[in-house]
C-alpha cells in the first residue's frame, strides 16, 4: 500500500513536470536552426578547407541531418526570448565564460591531484547532494563539470519524487551536511547551467 502510493505520487509529479515543460517547448524550426548553428562550424573545422563548394555541400548535409536530429541537443533548452538573442547570447557570452571557468578549474584540479600524489593526504568518502536541474542534458553537463572540478567524481544519478540526487566520491571529505556539501561541490556551475537548461 505504502509503495503503491509512493509510485503513484511519483507518476503524478513526473506528469506535472512534463506538462509544465511541454507548454514552453520551443518551436520546430527554431530547434532545427539551433542544431544547424552547432553542426556547421563543426563541419567547417573538421573538413579543414574553406572553398565555396565544400561550404555548400556542408551546409546542405548538416541541414538534412539537423532536420532529422532536431531533438537530440535542443530538447532541454529554456524557451525565453527570440532566437537571434538566444543564439548570440549562447555563442558570445555564455559558452566562452563557461569554457574559461572550466579551464581554470581543470588546471587547479590537476595541481591538486599532483599534491595529493606527493603527500597522500587523502580522506575519501561518498556523499549525496541534491540538484535543481531536471533535464537529461543539464544533468549530464553538471555531472561532467563536477568530475572535472577539484577533488570530486560523480558516481551515480538517482531521480526520486521529482527531485534529482547525485552521488559524489569526494577525495577529501570536509562536511556531511547535504546543503553545505552541495554548496562546496557544485559552486557556481549550477547557476550558469540554469540560465540555459531547465
Amino acid at each position, binding site marked *: 500500500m505504502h509503495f503503491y502510493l509512493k509510485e503513484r505520487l511519483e507518476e503524478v509529479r513526473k506528469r506535472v513536470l512534463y506538462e509544465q515543460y511541454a507548454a514552453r517547448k520551443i518551436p520546430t524550426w527554431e530547434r532545427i536552426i539551433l542544431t544547424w548553428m552547432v553542426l556547421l562550424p*563543426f563541419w*567547417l*573545422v*573538421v573538413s*579543414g*578547407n*574553406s572553398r565555396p563548394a565544400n561550404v555548400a555541400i556542408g551546409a546542405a548535409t548538416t541541414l538534412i541531418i539537423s532536420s532529422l536530429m532536431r531533438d537530440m541537443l535542443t530538447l532541454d533548452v529554456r524557451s525565453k526570448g527570440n532566437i537571434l538573442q538566444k543564439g548570440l547570447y549562447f555563442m558570445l557570452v555564455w559558452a566562452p565564460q563557461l569554457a574559461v571557468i*572550466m*579551464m581554470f578549474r*581543470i*588546471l587547479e*584540479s*590537476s*595541481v591538486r*591531484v*599532483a599534491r*595529493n*600524489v*606527493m603527500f*597522500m593526504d*587523502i*580522506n*575519501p*568518502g*561518498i*556523499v*549525496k547532494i541534491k540538484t535543481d536541474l531536471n533535464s537529461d542534458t543539464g544533468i*549530464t553537463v553538471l*555531472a*561532467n563539470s563536477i*568530475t*572535472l572540478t*577539484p*577533488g570530486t*567524481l*560523480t*558516481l*551515480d544519478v*538517482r531521480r526520486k519524487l521529482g527531485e534529482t540526487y547525485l*552521488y559524489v*566520491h569526494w*577525495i577529501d*571529505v570536509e562536511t*556531511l551536511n547535504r546543503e553545505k556539501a552541495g554548496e562546496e561541490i557544485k559552486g557556481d556551475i549550477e547557476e550558469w547551467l540554469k540560465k540555459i537548461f531547465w
Partner: protein
Amino acid sequence: MIEYLLLAFGEAIMVFGALGILRFPDVYTRLHAATKCDTGGAMTILIALALMAHAPTLVRLKFLVLAFLIALINPMVSHAIARGAYKYGIKPKVVVDMYAWDNP
C-alpha cells in the same frame, strides 16, 4: 615562449597522473588521478601545439576541437567505469558511504 611553458606543464601533469595511478589505494581514487590529470595534461599540450603549428587557422582550430572532445568524453567514460566497478562488487575504502545506505 609561452607554448614551451605550457608543454612542460602538461608533461609534468601527465607524469604525476601516472604516478597517482600507481600509488593510490583503490579504483575510485585511481580514477580521480586518471581523469583529472589526463584531461588537464592533454588539453594543455594540445593548446601548446595549436600555438606551435605552422598551419592555417582552420587546422589550428582542429587542435582545439580535439581538446574539447577530450574534455567532453573523458569524464563520461570515468563516470561509467566508476559505476560499473561499484556494481561489480568492489568496496571503496572510504570513511562514509552514502551510496551503500541507499542500495543495501
